[in-house]
């Protein structure tokens, strides 16, 4: 075979490969429009905030390694999906059965007006991310934070929060606050422990002995950040199907989570 013939065959094969690749990228094979849970379009998406980790915040608790870098994904995705099952059964919200991970490095977050974040004592924002989260909250977005414990975690959480909302005070929510009456009347709240309760029997972690139901409000008094400090609702959802995890904790966690969602969708 002469050289030019080899070149021609190679060029034809290359062109076919490029064409095939292009076709695969744009053609509709019917795979993307099926009814798989991740493809379902819905009104409500359980949106978990993925953030960068502040390595300095590890402090005296040592290295978290892989789990430290992916602190946002604690209990993910089981907690999310178990909660969505409950939400589907107990409310009329048209929610997708699977979670959605959102980040602050692009404007996609504005399509998800309710977000959930855990291990927020580890979060870290660039100025641009902080600005985006601030705008998100002031436009009408709602943030629920969970699973951080004790004084040091609180300070680390507030470091990030002050970057987002420098002038907004944090307040303790009273028992009769409207956020606890939207779907369920949650008057007598308890500290909701993580899965470690099964092993230790303790409801607290670190020095977070008392549950703190806190919030940050906007100018019109609407809660825009709901803070569950010294608690771990995510674990309660995740381990709700474990016979060793007490039902009252799980039930309370579901009721609070649903109240927070309904509040976020009505205020």
């Amino acid at each position, binding site marked *: 075979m002469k050289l030019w013939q080899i070149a021609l065959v190679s060029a034809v094969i290359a062109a076919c490969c490029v064409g095939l690749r292009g076709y695969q990228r744009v053609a509709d094979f019917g795979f993307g429009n099926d009814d798989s849970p991740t493809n379902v379009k819905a*009104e409500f998406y359980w949106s978990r905030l993925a953030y960068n980790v502040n390595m300095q915040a590890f402090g005296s608790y040592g290295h978290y390694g892989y789990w430290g870098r992916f602190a946002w994904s604690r209990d993910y995705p089981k907690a999310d999906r178990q909660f969505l099952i409950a939400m589907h059964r107990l409310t*009329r*919200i048209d929610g997708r059965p699977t979670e959605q991970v959102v980040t602050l490095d692009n404007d996609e977050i504005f*399509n998800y007006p309710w977000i959930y974040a855990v291990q927020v004592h580890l979060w870290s924002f660039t100025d641009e991310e902080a600005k985006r989260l601030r705008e998100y909250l002031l436009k*009408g977005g709602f943030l629920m934070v969970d699973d951080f414990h004790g004084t040091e975690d609180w300070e680390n959480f507030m470091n990030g929060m002050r970057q987002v909302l420098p002038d907004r005070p944090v307040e303790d929510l009273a028992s009769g606050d409207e956020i606890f009456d939207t*779907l369920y009347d949650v008057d007598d709240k308890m500290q909701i422990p993580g899965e470690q309760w099964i092993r230790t029997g303790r409801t607290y972690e670190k020095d977070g002995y008392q549950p703190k139901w806190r919030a940050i409000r906007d100018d019109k008094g609407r809660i825009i950040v709901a803070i569950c400090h010294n608690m771990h609702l995510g674990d309660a959802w995740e381990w709700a199907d474990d016979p060793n995890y007490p039902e009252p904790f799980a039930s309370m966690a579901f009721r609070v989570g649903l109240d927070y969602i309904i509040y*976020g*969708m*009505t205020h």
Partner: protein
Amino acid sequence: MFQFLFKYSSPVFTKGRFVLLSTWPKWLLPVLILGFSVGLATLVRRRLRDASPKMQTWRAWAIWGMQSACVALILLLLWQPAMTVSALSSQQNIVAVVVDDSRSMAVADSDGKTREAAATAALQDGILSGLQKRFQVRLYRLGNGVTQLDRLDQLLPVQTATHIGDGLKQLAAETADLPIGAIVLLSDGGENTAGMSGSGIGIDALQSLRNRRLPVHTVGFGKVNRAHDVELEDVSVVSSAILNARLTATLSFKQDGFAGQKATLTVRDGDKRLAAREVMLAPNGVLQTEQLFFSAGTAGAKSLRFEIEPLAGEENPDNNAMTQPLLVTDTKRRILYIEGEPRWEFKFIRRAEEDDPTVQFVTMLRTSENKVYRQGISDPSELADGFPVRPENLFDYAGIIIGSVDADYFTPLQQELLREYVDRRGGGVLFLGGRSSLSDGGWGASSMNDLLPTFLPPGRNNFHRNSATVELTAAGVDSPITRLLDDPAKNADRWKKLTYLADYEDAGSPKPGASVLVQMNAGHRRLPLLITQNYGHGRTAIMATGGTWRWQMSEALGDPSHDLFWQQLLRWLVADSPGPVTASIPQRVLMDEGHVQFSVQVHDRQFQPTSDAHVTANIVGPEGTNTLVDLTPSRDTPGLYQAVWTAEKPGAYLAEVTAASAGAQPEELGSDVLTFQREDGIAENFHVEQNRTLLEQLSSQTGGRYWEPSDLKNLPRDIAYSEAGISVRTTNELWNMPVVFVLLLGLPIAEWLLRRKWGVV
């Protein structure tokens, strides 16, 4: 010349009646004329074939025409033609000379003299003496009415208004027992009765003149066209608005001499300038209409001044401004929003309405199958049993929003109540798109289908969680609902650039009478998004999406588009929803007169007309005057109460109308407030050019004539031909008119000359 040829003056022919004095049968005259004509035609035709070729054309028929005309004239004279005409008896009749004495007659545009001076000069220049030779003359001045004068020097152009129609009607009434033969009106034709934009003589005034066959001879003074002037013709703006409402005023104006130049339209509340807009002036004499957008501002009764800022060299800057009363209320309108499922649209509409102080937003949200979350309620019992089932509960709301709710969520009774709510109560209902809305919620098959402004598409798969972009239609560009920016072009552009909707629903095609204000582009489909219509006494609309919340979340922080749109849409929804007591007056600005007719419609809590209520109007006028007026029920219309009242002084008035039920323990049914103002002397600043059309119409409709001031010498003579007063009917024979002899000689001579010319003598 006319009188030389025809012997008599023109009024003999224009006002007289043609008669034939001969006793011979009148039908015989046309028969003979026809017979002779046909005979001559036959003769001409018979000889035509022997005639020279030159005569076998139209020339033969020209000869025939002249012969026939000559014969017809002779036959007509045999029947003794004459004109009978009524003429006023000398010195037995009165001629009323009415001189316009209003302020506009002081305009000096009659060869350097004021119009009134020109009128006086015309009268003194022989007209008055000419009239006095034949008639008794009475002088009157005209302003708001007519007043008799002794001498011309008593005229002084200071009257604040010209009511020509009312004045002539008054004159006819006051001289009913006098032999008035004619009226001579010297005026510029500025008639103020119909308001600044009106220009007609009332039908009742014309009727009173016609009943007495009184001819009005009008003499017009002043320039018909202005050289350099801008005049505001009309201002149209709502009479009442809610706090901080964005209002549109429509200003109509004309100009002469400033075509193509720029002028500034302004609206002021006292010293505060609410809005201004620069416009390009249209060609001379063309009525130009422009809109001005402004905020109603704080609550209270206001007097807004709309103005075209005077241009350099303008002849009459006083006609550049008008005032209009505006009542701004802070009354909260209650809107009920029922939503079938938690969704973002619900949240963000609520947030938009939280910023509107004029709305109390009451919501009921189905959070689970058996739970309804209520917000914005007045007391714990409100909506505790769900959606209202009694009219007095539902009709309390000025508007209703129905979100993603299946039609069968409502019982048949509630469905009928909703229909009555719009049709009878006059409320507004807005339907939102959603997975249980419109066709997907079974609304097309429900009895409430009538309420919808569209024909819904078939099936239940018309709601899609896909993106759609939006754009205004032509109707939407003009609508205050969709006005995000004042400039129409920029506003249309803003809509195109709005971020996409999160979802959309195919609402079908609009019904006849419905308006599509916004449409959306969904894939390759173009669908209506916002559709409005009037239904019965109320209105309904569809917003075929549940995804406008993206306008709030995805536009820049602080962008008002989402909130502004929803506030405007919901204000439209409730703005015309009447309260139980609704008061109205025909005109809010009373020009030079204080006659006000109050009409009040009273309903009970079920919105049925109430005819046994006690209705009073407490009127607060200038200088704190306070008057209580009782209104009486109409015999014809149930629930309607009326009263007539006179505002004696110029200034602003505010009337609070209250209705209470009858009985030993009266209960207040409701109240309404309206404002109006009386303005004296303002109308005279407008239409200062001579209204020749009005003067010509007045004279022609009464049997008179319009006269130029420079051509009045025949007025004393011609005015005598009138059927009013003491008149005699004279018969004027026509056979001896010079023109007859001219024709009798001229026709044969012309025929002979033509024959010679054509060589057929």
